[in-house]
C-alpha cells in the first residue's frame, strides 16, 4: 500500500517537474500531468479497495517523524480514500477534457491543475487545522488560475471576484485558527475537543470564525455570488471539477470541524445548508443560462449535503451512506452536466436540444438529471429515503418539509430543462464531439450508474437494480437499435410471460391490477405495432413505467413501494414527453407527481419509524396523531396521481398531448396506480381522523367534486383527447368516491371502475387517437361525418360511450348499479347529490364525442381519409368484445374480489346466486338485461332492415339539402361550443380557479427567484459584503439561539 | 523599560492606524501604496517588540518591501487607471 502522503508528494513532484520542460514540449508535459493524476487516483483506488475488500484499518500518516499534535499528520480512512478517489478521478477526466486548453496554455496551466487537485486531496487528508488553511489557500489560488482556461472573457473578472472574497474569508479563517489554537493549545483535529472550546473564553467565537470561514467555501446563501460567476464563466471542465472536487473536499472539512465543535453546531450547519438549498433552487428558477443554472444547482446540492452533515446526530450508521450518496450523485451529475455543456454551443438552456440525435449523450443527460433529482436507482434516492426516515423518526418535520420543497423546486427547473432538450427545435449548430470530452462524459455516466449499483448493494433495503421488471425495462436501452416491431414483440412477450409466471402470487385485489397492467398493457401495445422505424426512447420509457407498476403491486414494504412509485412516475414522464406539444404538460405532470411522491415519502417515513413491520401491518399499527398525519399525507400523495380536483391540472394536457398509443397507457393504466395506493392505504388504516376531521369524509367530497367538475370541464372541451382526459378526472373521482364510502359495495364499485375505466378509456383514447391521426387535428369541430369512413372506430366509440355513461345493458351500468347500492348504506348524503349530477353530464360529453366526430356533415378536407390503421383498431375491437363479455358476466372479475373484500368489510356483500346479483337493497341480472334489450332492439332493427331492404342508399346532403351541395359544407355541421346552453347556465363552475391558483404559485416562485437573484450584482464588493453580512447574521442567530 | 515599550507600542499603533486611513482614503494612489507599505513596516517594528524577529524580518522583506514594489510596478503599467 502506498502511503497517502505520496498522493501529495507525487502531485508536487510532477508540478515542479513541469518546470523542467521546455515550453515547446507541451505534449510531454501533458503526459506527465495525466500520469500524475492517474497515479494519484491509483493510490486512492488502492486504498478504497483495501478498505472495501480487506477491511483495512485507517492509516495515520505522521510527518517529520513526530507524533501529532507536534507535527502535521494525515489520515487515510475509508471516507478519505473514497473522497480522494472521487477528486482524483474527476481531476483526471477533467484534465483529459481540458486537453486542448492545457496544451494551448502550456505547462503552467497544467501545474495549476495539479496543484488544484492536490490541494483538494490535502483538504480531505489533513488532520491539522492550519494545514487545512494552507490547502484551502492553494485551492483558492489554483481556482483563480484555472479560471484562465476559459474562453469566456468574463472569466478573469470572475476569478478576481473569487480572490477578493477569499481574502476576506481567509482573514476570518486565520483569526479563527489562531484563537482556536489559543483555546485548545493544539492545532490538531484529533486532539481538539468540544469541551476545550467551551472551556476557554472566546473559544466558541474562535470556533465560530473557523467554521464560518470553511462553510463560506461551500457557497452558502447569500455569500455565494462569486461562486455563481465562476460557474458561469469557467471552462466547463473546470466548472465541473470545481463543483465536484471543491465541494467534496470542503464538505469533508466541515465534517471534520463539526466533530470539533460538538453537537451544538449541528443545527447551525443544517440551518445554513437548508436555507442555501431552498434559496439557490428558487433563484435558479428564472435562469436561462445553462452554466449559471448548473451553478445554482451546485450551490443548492452542496447546501443540501451541508444540511445532511448537520443531521449526523440522527443519521447514525446511515450518515456516510446518506451524505456519501448525495456527494456521489452530485459528483457524477455535475461533472457530467458541465462537461456536456462544453459540447453545446448555445448558452441558453433551450440550446441543449442540439444533443438530440446523439443517443448516448442524451441518455447521459437524462441520467445526470435523474442523479440530481434523486430518482431511483441512483444513490440520491437511497439517501433521500434514509434522510426522510431519519428526520421523520426524530420529529424534524419542518426540516424535512423544507428539504422536500427545495427538492421540488429543483426538480422543476431541471425537468424543464430536460424538456427543452428533448422537445425544442434543434438549433443549427451541431455539437462539437471532441473525443476526449466525450470520453469524460461517458466516464461520468458510467460512474453514475456504478454509484447506483454500489449504493443499491450497500442499502439495507436491497438493490433496486436487482428487480427483474426494472432490469427488463433497462435492457430496452440496449435494444433500442432494433426496429420497433421487434421491441414491441419482446415487450409484449416479456410482460405476458411475467404475468404467467407470477399470477399465482397475487391476491384477488392485486390480481385485478396485475391483469390490467401485464395483460392490459400488452393489449395497448398492440397498437404500437403501427409505429414505424425504431421509435428511439419509447420502449425504455414505456417499459420503465410498466416495470414500476408491476413492482408497485408486488411491493410489500415501504421502500420498494416507493421505489416502484418513482419508477413509474419517471417512466410515464418520458412517455408523456414524447408527444408533439407535450413539453409543458409533461413538466407539470412530473412536478405534481414528484410533489405527490414527496408527500408519500414523508408519510412512509413517518410510518416506517413507528414499526419495522411490512408496509401493510405497519400502517395498521399506527395510532393517534401520527396515524392521522400518515393517512393525510399518503392520501393526498395518491390523489395527486388520480388527479383529484385541485391537483388535477396536469392531467388534461399530459394525457391529451401524448402519442396515440401512449394516452391509453397513461390514462387506462397509469391512473390506477394512484387508486391502488389509496386502496392499500384505506384497507390498512380504515378511517382516520386528523385533528377531528374525518379525512375519509373529505375524500368523499373530493371524489364527488372531481366527478362533477371533471365531467363539466369535459363537456366544454373542443379537443377530443382533452375531453377524454377530463373525463378521466371525473371517472377517477367516482372511484375515489367509491373508496371513500368505506363500505363493501363502494369498494366493489371502485374496482369495477378500475376495470371499466381501463377498458373504455383505453378504447376511446385509441379511437380518438386514430381519428386524430387521420384527420390531423384533435379539435372535434373540425371533424364530422366520419362514420362512413371510419366505421370501426365509430363502433368502438359508440360502445365506449354507452359503457361510460352507464346506460344499460353494457358494463358501465353495473358500475352505477353497485354505486347506488353502495351509497344507500353510506353515512353522508350530500356528496352523493353531486355525483348524481355528474352522471348525466358524463352522458353529454360522450354524446358530443360521437356526434361531433362521427355524425353530421363530412368536411371536404376529410373526404379521402381512411379507417384508422389496423393495429390501432385491433385493440379497440378486443375492447369491444371485452366490454360485451364483462357486461354479461361481471362476476368474472368481481366475484372473487367481492369475496376477498369480505375480510375487510364483512357486511353488505353481494349475492351471486344464479344469474342475478343481489344486494341488500336491490337486484340486477346482467344476462337478462342483455337478452331483453337485445331482443327488443334486435327485432325492431331487423324489422326496419327488412322493410327497407330494397331502398336506395343516398348520400348525406340528400337528406336536408335536397341533393344540393351547400356553399360551405363545414358550416352545416353544428359542432363548436356544442353545449352552449350549459355554458351559459353553469359555465361559472368551470372557471379555471385551480389552474390560476397553481399558476399564481408558480409565478410567485419565479418572481421571488427573479427578485432574489438581483442580490448578485456582479460586484465583488457586494459579494464580500454578503459574506460579512452572512457572518454577522449567523453570529447573531447563534448567540441569540 | 516596560513603560517605554508600552509608549512605543501605542505610538506605533496610532501611526499604523493613521497610515491605514491614508491608505484607504488618501487621494493619491502612490501615497496610498506607500502608506500601506508603511503600515507593513510599522507592523514589522511592532513584531520586533513582540519578540518575533522572524516575523518582523519576513514582514519587512516581503510584506512591506516586495509588495510595495509590486504595486508600483503595476501602477506604472496602468497610468490613468489610478483615477478610476
Amino acid at each position, binding site marked *: 500500500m502506498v*502511503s497517502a*502522503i505520496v498522493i501529495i*508528494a507525487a502531485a*508536487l*513532484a510532477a508540478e*515542479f*517537474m*513541469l*518546470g*523542467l520542460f521546455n515550453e515547446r514540449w507541451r505534449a510531454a508535459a501533458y503526459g506527465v500531468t495525466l500520469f500524475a493524476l492517474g497515479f494519484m487516483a491509483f493510490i486512492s483506488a488502492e486504498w478504497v479497495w483495501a478498505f472495501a475488500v480487506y477491511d483495512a484499518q485507517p492509516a495515520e500518516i*505522521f510527518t*517529520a*517523524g*513526530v507524533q501529532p*499534535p*507536534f*507535527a*502535521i499528520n494525515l489520515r487515510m480512512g475509508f471516507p478519505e480514500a473514497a473522497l480522494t478517489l472521487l477528486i482524483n478521478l474527476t481531476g483526471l477526466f477533467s484534465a483529459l477534457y481540458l486537453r486542448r486548453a492545457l496544451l494551448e*496554455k*502550456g505547462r*503552467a*496551466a497544467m501545474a*495549476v491543475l495539479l496543484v488544484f487537485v492536490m490541494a483538494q486531496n*490535502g483538504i480531505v487528508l489533513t488532520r*491539522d487545522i*492550519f*494545514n487545512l488553511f*494552507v*490547502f484551502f489557500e492553494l485551492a483558492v*489560488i*489554483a481556482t483563480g*488560475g484555472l479560471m*484562465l482556461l476559459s474562453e469566456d472573457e468574463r472569466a*478573469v473578472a470572475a476569478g478576481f471576484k473569487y480572490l477578493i472574497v477569499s481574502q476576506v474569508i481567509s482573514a476570518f479563517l486565520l*483569526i479563527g485558527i489562531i484563537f482556536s489554537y489559543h483555546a485548545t*493549545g*493544539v*492545532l490538531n483535529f484529533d486532539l481538539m475537543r468540544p469541551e476545550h472550546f467551551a472551556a476557554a*473564553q*472566546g473559544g466558541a*467565537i*474562535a470556533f465560530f*470564525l473557523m467554521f464560518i470561514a470553511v462553510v463560506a467555501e461551500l457557497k452558502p446563501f447569500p455569500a455565494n455570488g462569486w461562486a455563481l460567476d465562476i460557474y458561469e464563466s469557467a471552462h466547463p471542465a473546470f466548472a465541473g471539477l470545481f463543483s465536484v472536487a471543491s465541494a467534496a473536499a470542503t464538505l469533508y472539512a466541515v465534517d471534520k470541524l463539526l466533530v470539533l465543535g460538538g453537537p451544538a453546531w449541528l443545527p447551525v450547519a443544517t440551518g445554513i445548508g437548508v436555507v442555501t438549498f431552498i434559496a439557490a433552487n428558487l433563484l435558479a428558477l428564472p435562469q436561462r443560462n445553462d452554466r449559471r443554472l448548473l451553478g445554482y444547482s451546485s450551490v443548492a446540492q452542496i447546501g443540501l449535503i451541508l444540511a445532511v452533515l448537520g443531521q449526523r446526530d440522527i443519521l447514525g450508521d446511515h450518515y456516510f451512506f446518506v451524505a456519501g450518496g448525495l456527494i456521489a450523485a452530485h459528483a457524477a451529475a455535475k461533472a457530467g452536466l458541465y462537461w456536456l455543456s462544453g459540447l453545446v454551443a448555445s448558452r441558453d438552456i433551450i440550446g441543449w436540444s442540439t444533443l438530440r440525435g446523439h443517443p448516448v449523450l442524451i441518455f447521459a443527460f437524462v441520467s445526470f438529471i435523474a442523479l440530481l433529482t434523486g430518482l431511483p436507482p441512483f444513490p440520491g434516492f437511497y439517501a433521500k429515503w434514509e434522510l426522510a426516515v431519519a428526520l421523520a423518526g426524530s420529529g424534524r418535520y419542518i426540516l424535512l418539509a423544507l428539504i422536500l420543497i427545495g427538492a421540488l423546486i429543483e426538480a422543476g427547473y431541471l425537468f424543464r430543462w430536460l424538456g427543452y432538450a428533448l422537445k425544442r427545435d434543434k438549433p443549427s449548430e451541431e455539437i462539437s464531439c471532441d473525443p476526449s470530452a466525450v470520453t469524460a462524459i461517458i466516464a461520468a455516466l458510467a460512474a453514475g450508474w456504478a454509484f447506483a449499483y454500489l449504493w443499491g448493494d450497500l442499502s439495507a433495503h436491497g438493490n433496486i437494480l436487482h428487480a427483474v421488471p426494472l432490469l427488463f425495462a433497462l435492457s430496452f436501452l440496449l435494444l433500442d437499435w432494433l426496429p420497433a416491431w421487434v421491441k414491441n414483440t419482446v415487450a409484449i412477450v416479456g410482460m405476458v410471460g411475467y404475468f404467467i409466471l407470477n399470477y399465482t402470487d397475487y391476491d384477488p385485489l392485486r390480481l385485478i391490477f396485475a391483469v390490467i397492467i401485464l395483460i392490459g398493457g400488452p393489449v395497448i401495445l398492440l397498437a404500437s405495432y403501427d409505429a414505424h422505424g425504431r421509435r428511439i426512447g419509447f420502449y425504455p420509457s414505456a417499459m420503465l413505467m410498466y416495470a414500476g407498476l408491476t413492482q408497485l403491486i408486488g411491493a410489500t414494504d415501504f421502500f420498494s413501494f416507493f421505489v416502484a412509485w418513482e419508477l413509474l412516475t419517471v417512466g410515464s414522464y418520458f412517455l408523456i414527453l414524447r408527444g408533439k406539444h407535450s413539453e409543458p404538460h409533461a413538466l407539470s405532470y412530473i412536478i405534481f407527481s414528484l410533489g405527490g411522491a414527496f408527500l408519500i415519502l414523508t408519510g412512509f417515513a413517518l410510518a416506517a419509524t413507528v414499526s419495522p413491520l411490512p408496509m401493510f401491518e405497519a400502517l395498521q399499527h399506527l395510532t393517534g396523531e401520527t396515524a392521522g398525519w400518515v393517512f393525510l399525507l399518503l392520501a393526498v400523495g395518491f390523489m395527486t396521481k388520480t388527479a383529484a380536483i385541485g391537483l388535477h391540472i396536469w392531467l388534461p394536457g399530459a394525457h391529451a398531448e401524448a402519442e396515440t398509443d401512449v394516452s391509453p397507457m397513461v390514462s387506462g393504466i397509469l391512473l390506477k396506480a394512484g387508486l391502488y395506493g389509496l386502496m392499500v392505504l384505506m384497507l390498512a388504516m380504515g378511517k382516520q381522523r386528523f385533528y377531528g376531521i374525518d379525512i375519509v369524509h373529505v375524500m368523499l367530497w373530493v371524489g364527488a367534486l372531481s366527478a362533477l367538475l371533471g365531467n363539466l370541464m369535459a363537456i366544454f372541451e373542443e379537443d377530443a383527447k382533452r375531453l377524454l382526459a377530463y373525463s378521466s378526472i371525473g371517472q377517477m373521482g367516482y372511484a375515489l368516491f367509491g373508496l371513500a364510502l368505506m363500505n363493501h359495495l363502494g369498494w366493489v364499485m371502485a374496482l369495477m371502475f378500475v376495470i371499466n375505466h381501463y377498458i373504455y378509456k383505453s378504447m376511446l383514447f385509441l379511437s380518438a387517437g386514430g381519428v386524430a391521426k387521420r384527420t390531423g387535428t384533435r379539435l372535434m369541430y373540425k371533424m364530422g361525418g366520419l362514420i362512413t369512413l371510419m366505421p370501426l372506430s365509430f363502433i368502438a366509440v359508440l360502445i365506449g360511450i354507452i359503457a361510460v355513461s352507464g346506460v344499460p345493458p353494457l358494463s358501465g351500468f353495473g358500475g352505477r348499479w353497485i354505486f347506488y347500492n353502495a351509497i344507500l348504506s353510506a353515512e353522508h348524503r350530500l356528496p352523493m347529490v353531486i355525483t348524481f349530477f355528474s352522471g348525466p353530464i358524463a352522458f353529454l360529453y360522450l354524446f358530443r364525442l360521437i356526434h361531433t366526430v362521427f355524425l353530421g356533415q363530412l368536411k371536404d378536407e376529410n373526404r379521402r381519409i381512411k379507417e384508422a390503421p389496423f393495429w390501432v383498431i385491433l385493440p379497440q375491437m378486443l375492447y369491444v368484445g371485452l366490454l360485451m363479455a364483462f357486461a354479461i358476466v361481471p362476476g368474472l372479475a368481481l366475484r372473487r374480489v367481492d369475496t376477498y373484500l369480505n375480510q375487510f368489510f364483512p357486511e353488505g356483500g353481494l349475492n351471486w346466486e344464479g344469474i342475478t346479483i343481489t344486494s341488500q337493497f336491490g337486484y340486477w341480472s346482467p344476462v337478462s338485461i342483455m337478452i331483453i334489450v337485445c331482443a327488443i332492439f334486435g327485432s325492431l332493427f331487423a324489422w326496419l332492415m327488412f322493410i327497407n331492404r330494397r331502398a336506395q342508399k343516398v348520400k348525406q346532403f340528400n337528406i336536408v339539402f335536397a341533393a344540393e351541395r351547400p356553399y360551405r359544407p363545414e358550416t352545416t355541421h353544428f359542432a363548436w361550443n356544442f353545449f352552449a346552453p350549459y355554458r351559459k347556465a353553469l359555465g361559472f363552475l368551470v372557471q379555471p380557479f385551480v389552474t390560476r391558483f397553481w399558476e399564481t404559485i408558480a409565478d410567485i416562485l419565479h418572481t421571488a427567484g427573479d427578485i432574489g437573484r438581483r442580490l448578485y450584482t456582479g460586484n465583488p*464588493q*457586494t459579494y464580500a*459584503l454578503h459574506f*460579512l453580512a452572512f457572518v*454577522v447574521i449567523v453570529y447573531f442567530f447563534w448567540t441569540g439561539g | 523599560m516596560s513603560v517605554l515599550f508600552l509608549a512605543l507600542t501605542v505610538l506605533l499603533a496610532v501611526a499604523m492606524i493613521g497610515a491605514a486611513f491614508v491608505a484607504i482614503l488618501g487621494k493619491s494612489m502612490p501615497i496610498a501604496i506607500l502608506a500601506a507599505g508603511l503600515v507593513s513596516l510599522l507592523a514589522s517594528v511592532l513584531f520586533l517588540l513582540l519578540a518575533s524577529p*522572524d516575523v518582523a*524580518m519576513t514582514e519587512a*522583506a*516581503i510584506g512591506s518591501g*516586495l509588495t510595495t*514594489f*509590486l504595486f508600483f510596478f503595476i501602477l*506604472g*503599467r*496602468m*497610468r*490613468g487607471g489610478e483615477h478610476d
Partner: protein
Amino acid sequence: MIRKFAALLILAGIAALFMELLFTYQPDPELNTTARYYADRTAADIGAANIVTAIVVTYRGLDTLGEVTVLFLAAAIVGLVLAQGRRKTAKERAVTPAGELLATGSLFLAPLIMLLGVYVFVNGHLTPGGGFQGGAIIASGMLLMLLADPLKHFSHRLIAMVEALSGMIYVAIGLLGIALAGGFLDSHILPNGELGALFSAGAIPLIYALIGLKVGAEFSAILADLSGTEEL
C-alpha cells in the same frame, strides 16, 4: 453612499465580534502543550537553535511545502494571466533607458544583495530569517537588475530550472524522510550535529536553502513576468 453605510453597519457587527474576542482574550501564563514540547525538545530532537525555523521546516514542514507551492502557483498564474493576449514582444516596445547611476550601481549591488539573501537562508536555523526572507532578498536583487535595465533578458528558462529543481529536490528530501527517517519531511535524514553550528539541525539548512532558492526564483519569475508587460 448606501454601500458605505451598509459596509459600516455590517463591519460594526464584525467589530462586535472582534471585541468579544479581544476582551475575553487572556494571555497564557505558561506555554501550552504544543509550545512547551517545542521549547523542550527542539534543541535535542532537531538541533536547531531557532525554534521557529525548526517548526517551519520540520514540524510543520508540510505547511511550508504548501507555502512554497502557493508562491509557485502565484508565479505560474501571474505568468498565465499576463501571457494571455500578450501581443507585442519586448523589442517592439519603446525603451526608456535607465539612468547611468542606477545601471552601474545595480551591476555592483545586485550580487551583494543576492549574497546577503544566501546568507540569510543558510543561517535560518540559527538566527532569525530563513528561506523566505532570503528568497525575498534575492528577488529584490533581481528587481534591482530589472530596474537598471528594463530590457535585460531575464532567463526565464534559468529561473524555471532553478525553481523546478529546487522544488523537486525538496519533495525528494521529503520522501527520503519516509524512507530513511520517521516520516515525510523528517529532517533526520542528515545528522543533527552540534546546536548552533552552521551545519547542524539535520537537513534544515539544506531544505531552507532549497526553499530560499525556490522562493527567490518564484518572486523573480513574478517580477520578470510583470516586467514583460507593456504600459497601458
